[in-house]
């Protein structure tokens, strides 16, 4: 392999147990992130994308949830088998996370400054004075004007966009090797979204880290990703480079997702929608999990579990259509 992988997830299964029911939120997910790469995970709510990221962070909601099997290798260490204490020293230090809701993700009773300094004091054992200098530098870095004033402010005095910048400052305070961003722009205005994405891109290069970006917004994907994973029903249904996903989507679900994005150049009265809803994680269909909603479904789709298939060296899809030479030829003729 040419480049090193900062993260390798192999056959990850994260289940939730509620009474007798088992919710297979993440069910056999494998992927990797190369150093310096931005990988996007796309999917509807309930597809398991957020739980995948929380599994990496070791923050699966307890009690009830746990990693059943699989491994998460970060920087050579398997995060599923290390102690809680070791995990704590990695979390917020080498791997950090930005959440969806900037309005509620900061502690309302602590100053911005303290919240930014906290990881530095915890992981680097810095004195308050040094930590303060660094915190103000970080706030400047994420584009907050009057950083030394904001240092003493409380979260409620800041706008959503500014709070997300503060969250980013907290996440990058210890120069993480991997930055996980779970829908970082979903709760923000469109103009602010673009600014935050810009910021993430610059920051990534500045601190030389990799990004795992969770989103349902294909616009964000096009803007940020080098590779894309599409998740459905706790599984990866397609994995490809960003160009391939947009130009040659293979899985009917991916095609459906792309079809449901409005485009300027096309005249269309109604957007294409994928009929039906995401199956609940405690009762997936036996065969292909997308089959009940799929226009191309045939009997074999409902019988056996479908495996990921290789389209080319960087493109994988979980769909029987691509075993059929006829379909393949038809696709290519188009």
């Amino acid at each position, binding site marked *: 392999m040419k480049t090193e992988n900062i993260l390798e997830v192999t056959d990850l299964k994260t289940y939730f147990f509620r009474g007798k029911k088992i919710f297979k939120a993440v069910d056999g997910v494998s992927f990797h992130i190369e150093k310096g790469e931005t990988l996007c995970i796309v999917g509807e709510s309930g597809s398991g994308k957020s739980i995948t990221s929380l599994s990496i962070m070791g923050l699966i909601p307890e009690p009830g949830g746990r990693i059943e099997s699989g491994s998460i290798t970060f920087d050579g260490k398997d995060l599923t088998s290390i102690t809680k204490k070791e995990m704590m020293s990695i*979390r917020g230090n080498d791997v950090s996370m930005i959440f969806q809701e900037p309005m*509620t*993700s900061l502690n309302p009773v602590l100053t911005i400054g303290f919240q930014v300094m906290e990881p530095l004091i*915890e992981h680097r054992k810095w004195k308050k004075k040094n930590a303060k200098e660094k915190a103000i530098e970080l706030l400047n870095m994420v584009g907050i004007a009057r950083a030394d004033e904001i240092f003493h402010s409380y979260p409620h005095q800041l706008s959503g966009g500014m709070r997300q910048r503060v969250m980013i400052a907290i996440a990058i305070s210890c120069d993480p090797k991997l930055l996980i961003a779970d829908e970082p722009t979903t709760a923000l205005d469109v103009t602010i979204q673009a600014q935050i994405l810009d910021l993430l891109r610059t920051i990534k290069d500045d601190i030389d880290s990799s990004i795992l970006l969770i989103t349902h917004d294909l616009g964000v994907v096009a803007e940020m990703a080098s590779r894309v994973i599409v998740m459905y029903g706790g599984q990866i249904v397609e994995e490809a480079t960003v160009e391939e996903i947009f130009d040659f989507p293979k899985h009917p679900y991916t095609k459906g997702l792309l079809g449901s994005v409005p485009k300027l150049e096309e005249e269309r009265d109604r957007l294409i929608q994928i009929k039906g809803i995401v199956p609940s994680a405690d009762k997936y269909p036996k065969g292909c999990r997308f089959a009940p909603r799929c226009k191309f479904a045939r009997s074999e789709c409902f019988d056996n579990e479908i495996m990921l298939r290789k389209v080319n060296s960087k493109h994988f899809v979980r769909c029987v259509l691509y075993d059929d030479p006829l379909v393949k030829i038809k696709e290519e003729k188009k």
Partner: protein
Amino acid sequence: MYIFIIRRILSIIPVLFGITVFIFLIMHVIPGDITSILLGTEATPELKEQLKEKLGLNLPLYQQYWNWLLGVLVGDFGESLRTGAPILPEILNRFTLTFELTIFASIIAWVIAIPLGIIAGIHRNTKTDIGLRIVSLMGVSVPNFALATLLILVLSLQFNYFTPVDYVGFFENPLKNMERLFLPALVLGTAMAGSIMRMTRSSILEVLRQDFVRTARAKGIKERAVIFRHAFRNAMIPILTVIGMQIGFLLGGTVIVEQIFSLPGLGQYVLTGITQRDIPVVQGSILFIAVMFVTINLIVDLLYGYLNPRISYK
């Protein structure tokens, strides 16, 4: 901040005025009058009239009220009809004891309830939590008088321990004072602890679900810091409300516990006043208690601002 305090104090005035009117009227509606109590059942109507005139009870109601109010405004709460002793010094004297008892009981309650409430909240729905919830339910539901009597009986019959009878001030003899107050404070404290613990538990549970707790965990800080630095301060706000209410009630005197432990507290004073139709005593005491109650509420409000920076008093 100062403007806020002044505004709050000003807004208290109509409340207190309302209370004085209410108490005054209630006291005059209660059947039975002081003269028969003072003179005995054999007293002649003429004698009663004479006494009424002497005490100013023959005046129209509004005038009686007005005279009393004027006195109160300059700090003269009047004299007890029965003993003739001035009321305010008596109230203040008894209030020292009640105040001390309140503080003592509160500290006992906090020391028991807050840590246990946090533990129950963290270990939600485990055996620990269920056990602690039963204990707190007992704290809330066992009546004061039952627990007090039980304590006295068990200690005296089984362990031959009797609490000292005479009350000495804290600054005269702190040890003896605390020994005297320990049992009543424990009885009051356990009752307080029950509800504080339940509130702490549910408040901590509520806060632990919040996004910022997840953020704190994602920073990789120790779980203890997550609980105390991030969760507890947010959880304090509703707990403080309960504590404020309880202190307010206790400062008003705890009639039953004072009776059982024969403590010369404020509650006892009011009770005697009521049974003897000693109107000025009751009026004065209740007004004093009301002032204490609103003061505690004001302090609680100011503490909110300290705990929660979103509240500002500008």
